[in-house]
């Protein structure tokens, strides 16, 4: 059996890349990684450790043009059983195109490996339920939600072939990219500290950042906070913002409206800090602290520093 994985070779080699390679390996058979972008070959060869048989990097495609990338992947897809993407902005753009082009069923938003009947578990109803989807086509495309399976190192590096195959002129011209430097992209973060209106103003975010730094977590916020401009929009998690599934989600001063929960209910462990014991978020939480964030958060940060120092 032959499987393909697509990864974006611009920027760093993300955890999502290790996840999709691990996933494809566990489907069985050989795994060929198709990459586009400027990434160094030596970096890409490390994907062998997660089960990649080989990597092909196409230097002829430099941007994120889904039309070019889908055409290139399709040209490599003969006799391939599965094509795996991360269910990120690129997976969401390329995989549907490829599905139509190859007439291959797309299983979007997978959260685990296939069941014995061949169906794959996906997130539906904004995290309020799971569905089990089967593809009826000979080839299958799967886009995997980030943080759904743990990357597994099983081997050594693998060969990388650099090729240049141009797939026509790009129709989507990139004018600029706004990316906060050094920040952990939210969908990839294993821990997230998030705060809401309970913080009373943007000037109080320092303690949220201190708590996040103590854990190595990313910071996020609720919708009202992004809407009134206390925090940038890319930090907004929830149904209309970014959907995340970290191992640990700490929500501070967020009441837990249904739309917020829809974006975070995939988190493995949820800690809620709120002054209001009746806040609906406590019903979705694993651990709760009923108390004033201005007192609780510095204490929690200190306790984490103490814990880390003792490790």
């Amino acid at each position, binding site marked *: 059996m032959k499987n393909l994985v697509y990864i974006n070779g611009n*920027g760093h080699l*993300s955890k*999502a890349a290790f996840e999709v390679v691990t996933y494809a390996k566990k489907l069985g058979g050989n795994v060929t990684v198709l990459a586009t972008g400027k990434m160094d070959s030596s970096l890409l060869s490390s994907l062998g450790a997660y089960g990649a048989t080989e990597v092909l990097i196409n230097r002829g495609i430099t941007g*994120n043009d*889904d039309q070019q990338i889908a055409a290139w992947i399709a040209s490599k897809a003969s006799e391939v059983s599965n094509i795996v993407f991360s269910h990120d*902005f690129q997976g*969401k753009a*390329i*995989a*549907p*195109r490829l*599905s*139509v082009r190859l007439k*291959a*069923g*797309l299983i*979007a*938003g997978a959260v685990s490996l296939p069941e014995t009947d061949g169906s794959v578990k996906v997130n*539906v*109803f*904004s995290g*309020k*339920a*799971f*569905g089990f*989807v*089967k*593809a*009826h086509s000979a080839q299958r495309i799967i886009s995997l939600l980030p943080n759904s399976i743990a990357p597994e190192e099983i081997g050594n590096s693998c060969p990388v072939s650099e090729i240049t195959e141009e797939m026509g002129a790009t*129709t*989507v*011209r*990139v*004018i*600029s*990219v*706004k*990316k*906060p430097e050094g920040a*952990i992209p*939210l969908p*990839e973060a294993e821990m997230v500290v998030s705060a809401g209106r309970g913080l009373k103003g943007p000037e109080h975010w320092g303690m949220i950042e201190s708590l996040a730094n103590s854990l190595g977590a990313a910071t996020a916020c609720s919708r009202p906070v992004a809407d009134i401009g206390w925090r940038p*929009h*890319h930090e907004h998690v929830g*149904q*209309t913002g970014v959907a995340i599934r970290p*191992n*640990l989600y700490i929500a501070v001063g967020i009441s837990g409206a*249904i739309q917020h929960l*829809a974006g975070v*209910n995939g988190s493995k*462990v949820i800690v809620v800090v709120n002054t209001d014991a009746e806040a609906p978020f406590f019903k979705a939480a*694993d*651990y709760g*602290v*009923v108390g004033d964030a201005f007192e609780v958060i510095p204490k*929690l940060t200190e*306790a984490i520093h*103490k*814990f880390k120092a003792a490790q």
Partner: protein
Amino acid sequence: MKILVCISKAPDTTSKIAFTNNNSAFDENGVQYIVNPYDEWYALVRALEIKETSGADVTIITVGTSADEAIMRKALAIGADEAVRIDAEPTDAFMVASEISNYAKTQGFDLVLTGKETINFNGAQIGGMIAEGLNSPYVSIASKLDVHGTMLTLEREITGGVEVVEVALPAVVSCAKGMAEQRIPNMRGIMAARTKPLQVLPSTVTEALTSYVTFASPPAKSSVKLIDPNNMDELVSLLHNEAKVI
């Protein structure tokens, strides 16, 4: 300029999510359907804003049965000019997208808009599939869209940031928060919607590539463990020893 806005029905966000028929189908009992929020608040309203500033003809399309005409009338009441319903029970994203691209192919739309995903299936598939069917460029998860003649300038989400891109019409765009604000239809709009054209066309696609075998509800969350606000060491210890996340 001709704009096509693809809309889908979705259960109201407060609906109870339950399944029937041995967990093989969504239990519609007592469920109130709305226009999928991404389709309505962002795609449709932005199309109407373009119509108001530079003139456009806005058509909405859905693939569904006559029961879906209620949400179509809502979209007309908000301000769409005309509506098209492909008369078929939707089976999967490929089928729905193929119905829409088969229709759109012959109609000369300059811009096709969808929501970034539906809140019931969360697949984010339709826009890209329509774009492939029409052989058009596609910009996914756009939070800003401006028209300059035959060009579009957009902001779209990328991992950990935002990309500003430019694309020539015709194009397909999936719309996310930031692009427009929700509009409530007024009485005049609701009255006018009754007489706006709603065309029903036969299905052209029989094939589906995927199907749901079964559904499951997430395991019930055990009740929250409350920690004394003066004992954060206990919380840290629980996160380490019990939850094993730090």
